[in-house]
Structure formats: C-alpha cells, structure tokens
C-alpha cells in the first residue's frame, strides 16, 4: 500500500549503487578517472545528452516519445551556420532555437491533433530534419566565424555559450544545470508538471477531468524540440562549426539514459533525479571505457547490456516472486502482474 513511494526510492537507491560500482571500478582501473580534469571533461561531454534528457523526461512522463532530437540538433546547428552571414550570428542562433521549437511543434501537432503514433511521427521527422540539415548545408560542415570581421562582439558573445564560464562553471554545464533544476521545479511544483504525470498516467481520465490534454502534450513536444535548439547553439558555439552530421543517433543515447533512470515508456512515472542518474551511469561507463581504450564495439555492447541489466533487475525486483517455489522447480512464477504482452 504505502510501498509506492518506497519503491521509487528503492529504484533510485539501486541506480546510485550501480553508479557507485561503476565509479569504484573505473577509479581502480584508471588513475585518471577521478581527476578534476576528467570530471570536468565528463560534465562538458554530457551537456547535449543532459539537456535533451531533461525535456525528454518531461515528454516521456507525459506518455510521449521523441526520436527526432538528434536530427533536430543537426538541423538547428546548420540553420545557425547558414544564416550567420545574412542575419548576424546572434539572431541566427535565436532563430535556430525557434526552428527547434517549430520542429517540436510539428511533432506535437501530428501526434496530438492528427493522431499519428509518436514513434512513427518522430521517426518520420528524424528523416526529414536530417535530410533538411544536409540540404541546407549542402552536406558540408559550415565553420562559424566572423568571416567579414564586422561582428566581433556578436561572435564573442556567441562563443561564450560554448566556451565561457559562469560562476566558475563552464557555460554549457551551467545551462544544463539550470535547465535540470527548472525541470525539477516544473515537475514538482507546477500544474504543467502535474499535468504530465496525470496525462501519462491516464490520458482519458485527465481529459475527462477537464485538462486540455492535447495542448499539454503539444507543449511537451515543443519543449523537446526547443531543447534540441538550445543544445544545437551550445554545440555549434563549442565547435565553431555547424555539422549536418552532428549528434548522430543521439535519440537512442538519450532514451537509453532516460529509461535507465526509471522512466517508463508507458508514461506516468519517473523522476528527473532518476534521469540524472541514468545519464551519469551511461556517461561514466562510456567515459571509463574510453579511458581504458576500449573499442567502440565493446562500448556499444556494454551500453546495451547495462540497459538490459538495469531494466531487467528492476523488473525482477518489483515482482513478488515466490523464490522458494521457483527454486523447487515449480512452474509458479510471478503474480500480481498483469498485461503480459505490453511490458509495463
């Protein structure tokens, strides 16, 4: 009865344990792992995934799914690169964020008003956005710099997004933290966050309780696109270049991290703390493996195995299994669980 809260605490606790184990392992295996410098690098390295994960969490709690974020990052970056000359770099960056929001809005419209399945919608958008990124850039990486030497201040400001520091923290990391805290506040204290949980938990009931389910959902998709726009600005500013190939398969990394953190694909449950832990687990794992010069293939395999382990263990833990009977070889297995086909 009272176990709902305990269970989510247990889930977070088990994530912390996994994270700790990974950290202990790699700190033993590599002397560099726990150095200030490496930790700084790691934080900087997760900004794109981190920013996208915050809003993907919101979206998925509301029962949505967005596979197009990686492509949208690339598209928004290319928009900056393509428009910097004519519009000036800062308006171009602002416009890119708006384009991100627009892509998200289009996703949201197709999902909520037209009623196409989110997986299909964002799969289609993945293809469209990536294609447009290549079309607008002609397939080339566009350097972002003051080619005419007339916008020194503007470019200086722009590069601050990627390279500057705020309160001694790298700007992208700072922005990620701000967005994370914003997300926490939204989920905890605002009606918007409450709406996400309600809609993800039971969209029909929420609709009948008088919530404008469509509008809330649409906003969630828009925020997801918007966050892709923000991530694109930070990335472009950090690399001094806009690449139509940017953020390859980012959507899968983000979803892996978010699901690792306990977000259910069915919606209605999960927390940002869990997501943060999921992102950290994934990135420490990959960072540690990189430090040990592990091949990319092994990293891919490890990523898959960790995902399966985390979700699988969680599944086993939350089930009330009669272990003694199971050990005796009886066919008595789970109980209390319904819905066999559709996971959680």
């Amino acid at each position: 009865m009272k176990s709902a809260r305990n269970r989510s605490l247990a889930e977070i606790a088990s994530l912390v344990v996994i994270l700790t184990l990974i950290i202990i392992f790699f700190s033993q295996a590599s002397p560099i792992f726990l150095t200030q410098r490496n930790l700084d690098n790691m934080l900087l390295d997760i900004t794109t995934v981190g920013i996208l994960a915050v809003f993907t969490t919101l979206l998925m709690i509301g029962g949505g799914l967005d596979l197009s974020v990686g492509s949208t990052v690339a598209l928004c970056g290319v928009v900056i690169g393509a428009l910097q000359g004519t519009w000036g770099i800062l308006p171009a960056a602002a416009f890119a964020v708006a384009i991100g929001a627009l892509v998200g809005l289009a996703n949201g419209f197709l999902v909520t008003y037209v009623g196409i399945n989110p997986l299909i919608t964002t799969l289609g958008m993945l293809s469209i956005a990536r294609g447009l990124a290549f079309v607008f850039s002609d397939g080339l990486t566009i350097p972002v710099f003051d080619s005419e030497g007339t916008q020194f201040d503007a470019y200086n400001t722009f590069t601050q997004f990627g390279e500057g520091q705020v309160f001694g923290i790298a700007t992208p990391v700072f922005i990620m933290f701000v967005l994370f805290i914003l997300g926490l506040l939204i989920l905890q204290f605002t009606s918007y966050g409450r709406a996400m949980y309600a809609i993800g938990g039971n969209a029909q009931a929420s609709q009948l309780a008088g919530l404008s389910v469509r509008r809330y959902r649409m906003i969630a998709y828009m925020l997801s696109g918007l966050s892709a726009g923000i991530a694109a600005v930070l990335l472009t500013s950090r690399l001094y270049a806009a690449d139509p190939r940017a953020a390859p398969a980012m959507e899968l990394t983000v979803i892996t991290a978010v699901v690792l953190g306990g977000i259910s694909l069915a919606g209605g449950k999960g927390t940002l703390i869990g997501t943060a832990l999921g992102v950290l687990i994934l990135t420490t794992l990959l960072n540690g493996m990189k430090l040990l010069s592990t091949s990319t293939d092994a990293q891919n395999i490890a990523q898959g195995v960790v995902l399966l382990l985390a979700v699988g263990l969680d599944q086993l833990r939350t089930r009330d299994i009669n272990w003694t009977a199971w050990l005796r070889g009886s066919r008595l297995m789970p109980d209390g669980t319904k819905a066999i086909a559709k996971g959680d």
Partner: protein
Amino acid sequence: MQNTATPAQSKGVIPKIGRWLRGERLTTLNLFVSFIIICIIFASQSEFFLTLENFANIGRTLGVVSIVSIGMTLVLITGGVDISVGSVAALSGVVASILWLNFGVPLFLATLLGLLACTVVGFLNGYMIAIVKINPLITTLASFSIVRGLAFVLSNGQTNQLNDEAFKFLGRGEIGGVPVSLILLIVLYIVFFVVMHFTHFGRNLYAIGGSADASRLAGIAVRRHLLIVYTLSAFLAGLGGIIIASQLASSAPRAATGLEFTVIAAVVLGGTSLSGGKGSLIGTLVGVFILRVLDNGLVQTRVSSFYQDVISGAVLLLAVGFDQIRLKLTSTFGGK
C-alpha cells in the same frame, strides 16, 4: 434480450458512409491508390520507370525488406516492436562467412548456423520480453547495440567475400526468369498469410495484441507465443541478412544499417497498428512496395539523396496522417 441494433444493422446513408470510411479494406485500398499515384508521378517523370527491366529490378531488390517485414508485422500485431532486426540481419551474414572462411564449415551448413545464431538472439529477445517482461522497445534497443557490436567484434570489422555460385543463387539467381528471392518472398507471404488467417497460432497473435489478459484467461499460452514471434522475427531478419550477403556475394558487419526503420515504416504504412491487435500482411506488402518504388523512382528521377530522406519521411507522415484523419472523420459521419 431486446438488444440494441449493432452498427452492422443500423440504417441510413450517413452511417453507411461512416462504416465504409472506417473499414479496413479502405486502408488497403487507400494504400493501393497512393501506390498507383506514386507510380503515375514517376512514370511521367522518367520514361524508364515502367520498363520491364525496371520491374525485374524492383522484384530483385524487394526481397530483404519484405521478408523482414513479415516478422515485424507479426511482432507489431502482438503489440510489441523489434528494433534489432537490422543488427540481426548483419549477424547472420557475418557468422556464416566466418564459419565458412575461418573454420572451413561448408557454406550451406555455415548459412544454417548463421540463421541459428539469429534464432538464438530472437529467442533471447523473446525471453526478456515474455518471461522477464522488459518492454519490447527497450529489450530490442539493447540487443540492437549488442548484436551490432558482436557483428563487428566477430568480423573484426572486415568485409568478407562469399564467392560461391550456389550461395549467390539465392540472391541473384532466376528460375524461369523470376528472381529466386522474389519467389522466396511470395512463398513466405503465402505461408504466413495462411498462418495469420487460418491457423490458431495466427489468430492467437491477434488476440494477444488485442488483449493479452483475455488471451491468457482463454488459455492461450501468451508467453510461448511471444517467444515464438520474436524468435521468428529474428529468424526472418537473419534470412534477410543471408539474402543481402548472397546478392552482394559478401558479408559486412555494417550491413542492413537502419533496416529496422525502413521495415517499421513499411509495416505501419501497410496499416498495422503499433498498439497491437491489428494489421495484415497484404497491407505490409503494399507498404513495402510503396517505399521501394519511392526509392527507386527518386533515384531514377535523380533527386539528390539529401532530398530523398526528406521525401521518404514526409510520405510516411502523410500516408499515416491521412489514415488517421480519415478515421477521425468517421466519428463525425455517424460512427459509434
């Protein structure tokens, strides 16, 4: 019981229109019409589109996606999804070529063992989904990266030649002028059509997708069915991989990248619902045709590959979106 009129008995023109609009036949019919329209557009743009040679070409290149789509249709009908098919397809070729080249296993046997490896992967997928009860998207997302990684590790990233006439026959050969892979896919579609419509196994899959609970309570072994479906899906993906390898006379760990997305797009285009319980193999076949013809036509009309991505994505959204809007309209025209 003085029961109410069921929709099938209600009278009047408007409900009739509503029923007709809601009908499944129309989804397939719509698809057919869109298919014809796409063909007409391309035929008007490229004089070579409607040539015998091009038909033969489409028949030859249809095999992989259509065969893997069978498995995906089954999986989607049970309410699941299988993201790992592309990786699994790569695995079958890699395993077969390694066994043949490095261990001297006869190629025929090596091919079978390659398929076996895929079947095992499918079984593990099914086990995780049906027994451990992990969400299918998550499970197959994980095996998607694990299996692709395995293919690279096993092959050491190398492309291997599979120069063997008998082996090439599967992907390139012809019987009476008809490509072998086309014959194979027709046979498979007929077999699975019969399975889905005239056997208990097939009907049970619809029932499971419609309501796993109802099926379980009706005494259907839901877990076993799911296990079989994911195993089948991986087996068919492996078969697709073997056809790729045979067509190219080589195997590469990079093969079939992104196949899962093409396949899911084709199946969903064909009217199979991602929420399970609904779909048909005929629709899937039409979906596969549409995507193949679209690609073929875009290449032939020499559209830049950058635009090809945009157009494929847009066609998917348009087709599925149109179907959704049609379903919505039905509620205005005297639906239930």
